[in-house]
C-alpha cells in the first residue's frame, strides 16, 4: 500500500496545485516540494520494508478485478527493480522542483502537469498488469507535450510534437506486442506474473513478438535509430522536464524492455541479443561522437544521454546476471547524473549567462568557479570515474558483455572506444565551456553564486551518485532477488 501512495500523492498533488491561483507561487512551490518529498519518502519506506520483509519477489501486491471481460486487472506490486526506480523518480521529482524554484509563469499549471507526469511514471513502475501498465504509460506521455510546448524554449512546439509523436508511435507498437501476448498466451489475462509463470509462448511466437515489444519500449529508451526525439526534446524542455525526461522517462522504456520483453519472451531475447548488442554499441559510440561536435551545451548533454542509455541496452542484451545488474544500476546512475547535468546546464549556468552556446562562454572558471566545479564533478561522474555510480554500473555492464558468448569481439572493442569517446567529449566540452575566453560579451563580471535551492539539488544528486559509487550494495541488495526470476526464465529458455 505504501508503494501505491506514491501514485496517489502525485495525482492528488497535481489536482490540488492545479486549482491554486497562479499568483500564490510561494505556496505552490512549497506545496510542490512537499508533494515530491512525500512521494520520495513513500518510495524510501518501500525500500526499507522490502529489506525487512520476507523472501517474496513481489511485495505489497494489490489485486483487484477491473475489466473482467478482457481479463484486465488492477494489479500492482513492487520488487527491487521497481523500488530502485521509484526512489529515482522521487529523487528527480524533488530536484526538479528545486531547480524550478524561480518559476513564475503559471506555476500552478506547471506543477499540475509535472505531477501528473510523475504519477504516471510511478504507476508504470508499480503495474503488474500489462493493461494497467499501458494506461499509466499513456498517462505519462500527455503532460510532456504541454510542459514542453508551454514552458519550453527554442523550437518548443516542434520538439513537443516530435516527442509526443515518437512516444505514441512507440506505445502503439508496444501495444501491438502486448495484444499479441494477450492472444498468444490464450490465458485471457494481462497479468504479468501469470504470463511469466504460465505463458508458454512458442519459440516462433517469441522470435516474432520480441522485436515488436523491444522496439516499442526501446523508442522511449532512446534506442538508435529512434533516438532523435531525445536531444531535441531535452533541449527544448524546461529544466525540470529535461531532468524528468533524461532521468526517468527514458528509464520507462528500458524498464519495459527488461520487465516485459525480456521477462516474458526469454527465447526471443536470446535470439535477438546480438542485434540488440550491436544497436547498443551504436548508441554508445554514436551518441558520444555527436556530443563531441555539438556547439550548444544542452545538446551535448542530450546526446550524452543517448550514449549512456546505450550502456543500459548493452547490459540488457548480455542476458546474464552481471549485465542485467549493470543495466539496472546504469538506469539509476544515469538517472541521477543525467538529471544533474541538465540541471546545471539548463538552469544554473543558463540563468546566469543567458546563452548555452559554448563559443559565447567567457572565462567561466573565474567568473563562476563553484558552479564550474560542480559541473566538473558531475562530468567526472558521467564519464564513469571510480568512486561514482557510473563506474560501478559500467563495470558491471562490461563484465557482463565479456561473458556474453553470443557477442562478437568487436562489440567489446567498440564499447571500449565508446568509453574513450565519452571521456574525450566530456573533457573537451568542460574545457570549451569553462576554460576558454570569448571577448565577445561582457568580460569580467562575476556571476552570482548558487542559490540555496540549487545547492540543495546538486548536493542531493551528487550525494546519491557517490553513495552508489562507493557502496553499490545499497542497490544491488534489492536488485539481486528481483532479477532472479528473469534470469531463471532465461536459463530455462536457453536449454
Amino acid at each position, binding site marked *: 500500500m505504501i508503494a501505491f501512495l506514491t501514485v496517489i500523492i502525485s495525482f492528488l498533488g497535481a489536482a490540488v496545485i492545479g486549482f491554486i491561483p497562479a499568483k500564490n507561487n510561494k505556496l505552490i512551490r512549497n506545496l510542490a516540494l512537499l508533494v515530491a518529498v512525500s512521494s520520495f519518502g513513500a518510495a524510501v519506506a518501500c525500500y526499507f520494508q522490502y529489506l525487512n520483509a520476507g523472501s517474496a519477489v513481489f511485495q505489497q501486491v494489490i489485486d483487484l478485478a477491473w475489466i473482467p471481460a478482457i481479463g484486465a486487472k488492477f494489479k500492482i506490486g513492487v520488487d527491487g527493480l521497481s523500488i530502485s526506480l521509484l526512489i529515482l523518480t522521487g529523487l528527480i521529482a524533488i530536484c526538479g522542483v528545486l531547480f524550478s524554484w524561480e518559476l513564475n509563469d503559471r506555476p500552478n499549471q506547471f506543477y499540475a502537469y509535472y505531477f501528473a507526469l510523475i504519477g504516471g511514471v510511478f504507476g508504470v513502475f508499480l503495474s503488474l498488469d500489462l493493461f494497467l501498465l499501458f494506461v499509466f504509460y499513456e498517462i505519462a506521455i500527455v503532460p510532456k507535450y504541454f510542459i514542453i510546448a508551454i514552458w519550453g524554449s527554442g523550437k518548443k512546439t516542434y520538439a513537443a510534437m516530435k516527442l509526443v509523436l515518437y512516444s505514441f508511435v512507440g506505445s502503439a507498437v508496444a501495444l501491438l506486442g502486448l495484444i499479441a501476448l494477450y492472444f498468444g498466451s490464450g490465458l485471457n489475462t494481462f497479468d504479468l506474473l501469470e504470463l511469466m509463470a504460465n505463458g508458454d509462448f512458442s519459440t516462433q511466437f517469441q522470435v516474432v513478438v520480441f522485436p515488436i515489444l523491444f522496439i516499442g519500449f526501446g523508442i522511449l529508451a532512446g534506442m538508435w*535509430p529512434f533516438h*532523435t526525439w531525445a536531444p531535441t526534446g531535452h533541449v527544448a524542455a524546461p529544466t525540470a522536464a529535461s531532468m524528468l525526461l533524461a532521468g526517468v522517462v527514458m528509464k520507462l522504456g528500458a524498464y519495459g524492455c527488461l520487465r516485459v520483453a525480456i521477462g516474458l519472451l526469454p527465447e526471443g531475447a536470446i535470439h535477438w541479443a546480438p542485434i540488440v548488442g550491436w544497436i547498443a554499441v551504436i548508441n554508445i*559510440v*554514436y551518441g558520444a*561522437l*555527436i556530443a*563531441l*561536435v555539438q556547439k550548444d551545451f544542452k545538446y551535448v548533454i542530450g546526446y550524452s544521454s543517448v550514449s549512456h542509455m546505450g550502456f543500459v541496452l548493452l547490459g540488457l542484451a548480455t542476458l*546474464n*546476471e*552481471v549485465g542485467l*545488474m549493470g543495466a539496472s544500476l546504469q538506469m539509476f546512475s544515469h538517472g541521477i547524473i543525467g538529471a544533474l547535468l541538465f540541471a546545471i546546464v539548463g538552469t544554473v549556468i543558463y540563468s546566469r549567462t543567458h546563452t548555452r552556446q559554448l563559443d559565447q562562454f567567457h572565462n567561466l*572558471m*573565474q567568473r563562476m568557479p563553484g558552479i564550474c566545479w560542480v559541473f566538473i564533478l558531475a562530468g*567526472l561522474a558521467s564519464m564513469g*570515474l*571510480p*568512486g561514482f555510480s557510473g*563506474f*560501478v554500473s559500467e*563495470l*558491471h555492464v*562490461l*563484465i557482463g558483455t*565479456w*561473458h556474453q558468448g553470443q557477442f562478437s569481439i568487436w562489440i*567489446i572493442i567498440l564499447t*571500449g572506444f565508446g*568509453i*574513450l569517446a565519452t*571521456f*574525450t567529449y566530456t*573533457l*573537451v566540452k*568542460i*574545457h570549451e565551456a569553462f*576554460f*576558454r*575566453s570569448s571577448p565577445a560579451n561582457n568580460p569580467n563580471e562575476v556571476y552570482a553564486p548558487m542559490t540555496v535551492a540549487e545547492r540543495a539539488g546538486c548536493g542531493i544528486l551528487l550525494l546519491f551518485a557517490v553513495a552508489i559509487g562507493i*557502496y*553499490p*550494495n545499497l542497490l*544491488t541488495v534489492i536488485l*539481486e532477488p528481483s532479477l532472479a526470476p528473469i534470469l531463471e526464465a532465461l536459463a530455462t529458455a536457453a536449454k
Partner: protein
Amino acid sequence: MNLFDFSDSVGWLMWIPICPLIAGVVLALLKPSGKVSAMVAIAALTVSLGFSLKAFAGTWGHEAHTLTHNFTWIQIAGVNLEFGVVLNSLTGSMLAMVSFIGLLIFIYSASYMSQDERMGRFFCYLSIFMVGMLGLVVANSVLMLFMFWEIVGLASYLLIGFWFHKPSAAAAAKKAFITTRIGDLGFLIGLLWAFKATGTFLFFDGGVGILESSTIAALASNTNVLWGLNGAGVIAVFLFIGAVGKSGQLPLHVWLPDAMEGPTPVSALIHAATMVAAGVFLVARAFPLFLADTAALEIVIWIGGLTALFAALIAIAQYDIKRILAYSTVSQLGLMMVGLGAGGLAIQDGGVSIGMFHLLTHAFFKALLFLGAGSIIHGCGDEQDIRLMGGVFSKMKISSLAYLAGTIALCAFPFTSGYFSKDQILLSAWEANKTVFWISAFASLLTAFYMTRQCCYVFLGKYRGEGHVHESPPLMTVPLVILAVFALLLGYVSEHFYHVLDYLSGVHVHQHNSTVVIISWIIALGGISLGLLVYARAKMGIDDVDPVKRLMTTPYGWLENRLYADELYQLTAFKLWGALAKAISAIEGLIYIMVVVATAIVSMIGQFFSGTIDKKLIDQVSFDGTCKRIYESSQINAFIQNGFLQGYLRIVTAGAVVIGILFLLLAR
C-alpha cells in the same frame, strides 16, 4: 576489515591512504587559510609516513613474505568482489619512498606556493593525489589499483591545470588526462580479461590470486590466446598499455612534457617522482604475469629502450629548464622499463628489483632536480628559459650545489645512486638483448651530455636575464639538501635494496661484468666531458645559436620540434577523431532527414487519402455518387408515388394495357 588491529592483520595499511583522504576532505569542506591547509596536509602525510615506515620496517628481513588482508566490496553475480591490501617488500619500499618524498615536497610547497591565494586548494589536490598514489601501492586487487590509479589521474589533471587562467595550462591538463586515459582503456581491458580468466581481481589470495603460481601456470598453459601471446601474456600486455600511458612511454609520451605547465612542486612530485612511476610500479606488481611470457617482456624492453633514446635525443634541443627535465624523466622511465623487461629475461624473478631500484633512486634525484629547478626559477624571477639564466651558481650556492648533486646522480657518475641503479639495468640488458643494450647505453650517454649542457647554460658565465637572482628561503632549501644526500648516497644500500626487493624468489641479483662496468664509466664520464667540451666556453644568449645546432642544423631543428610527435598526432589521430565525429553527425543529419521525409510521406499519403481517395473516390464517386443515385432514384419514386389515386389508376390501366398487348403478342 579491521583497521585497528596492528599486530596480526595488515588491515591498518589502509590508514596510509586514509590519512591524506581525511586531510583532503577537511580542506575541501572547511576551506581554511593557506597556511593552516599546508599544516593539516603535512600533518596527515606525516602520519602516513609513520605507517609507511612501519610497513617498510616490517618487510626488512622478511623478503619472501607476502601478507594480505582482504575484504568484500560488493557482490557481482553471487561472486564476492574482494578488495584488500598487500604488504611485501615491493609495497614497503614504494610506500616509504612515496610518502617520504611526498612529505619533503609538501614542506617545500608550503613555501613555494605561499604567495598563491589558492594555496588551500593546492594542498587539497596534493592530498587527493597522495590518497590515490598510496592507495594504488597498497592495493591487493587489480580493480582497486585501477580505481586509485584513476584518482591519481584526476589529481594530476587538477594540478596540471592549477593555473588554469593560462590557456596553455588548461590545455595541457586536458591533453594529459585524455592521453593517459587511452592507456587506461588498455588497463581496463586487461583487468577485465584477468577477471574473466581467473574469476578474481585479487593479486594474492591464499593460492588462488591472479599473481600466484598455480594461477599463472594455468593462464600460461593457454597458449596463443591473442597475437601469439599466452593467457598470462595477454593480460600483461594490456596492463602494460596502461603503464605506457601513465609512464609516458612511446607513443603516449606527448602529455608529460606539456604537464610541466603545473606548479613546480607538482612537476617534482607527480610528474617525476611518483605518479609517472606508477606505470613502472604496475609492471613490477604484475611481474609474474610478464614472466610467464617472454614475448610480453620483449615488448617491454623494446618500448622502454626506444622511449629512452627518443626522449634523450629531444632533451638535447630544449631550452626550457623544466621541459629538459621532463624529457629526461620520459627517458629514465624508459630505462626502468628496460630494467624490468631485461631483468625478467636475464634473471627471471629477480628482475623486478632492477627496474624498481632505478625507480627509487630516480625518484630522489629527479625530485631533487625539479625542486632545485623550482628554486632557480624562483630565484631568477620566474624565468624558465635557460638562455636567460647563467652565472646562477655564485648567487644561489645551496640550490646550485644540490642541483649539481642531482645532475651527477642522473648522469650515473660513478658511486652516486644513479650509477648503481643504471649499472644494473645495463648489465641485465647486456645479457638479455644486445641491441637494446646499445640503445640504452647511447641514451645514457646523451643523458650525461644534455644535463651537462643544461648546467653550463644555467650555472656558468654571466647572468643573462633581467631579474635579481637570490637564494630561496630555508623551507625550500632544506628539502633540497636532504634529497641531495639521498641522491648521492642511496646507492650504498643497493645491496640491501636488491635483497629487500627480491620478494619473489630471494635470488641474489647483484653481479658483475667488467665490460659493462667499463662501458658505464665511459658513458657517464664521456657524456659529461663532451658536454663540457662543447658548452663550457660557448656563447649561450637568447640570440646565439646553440653549438650543436651549428654543427647539425637540420636534425637539431627536428629535435627542437620534438620530432614532430605532437604534429603527427594533430594530423592523424585528431583529424581522424574529428572526421569520425563529423561523419556520425552526417548520419544523424540523414536520420533527421529520413524522419522528415517519412513524416512528409505519411502526410502525403494522408493527403492522397483525404484528397484523392476520400474526396474523389469515396466521397464523389462512392459516397456522393451513391447518395446522388439514391436521391435521383427517389426523385423518380417520389414522382411515381405521389399519393394521387387517379395517378395510380392511370398507371395500373396503362400497365394492364401493356400486359394485354404482351399477352396478345405472345399467345400467337
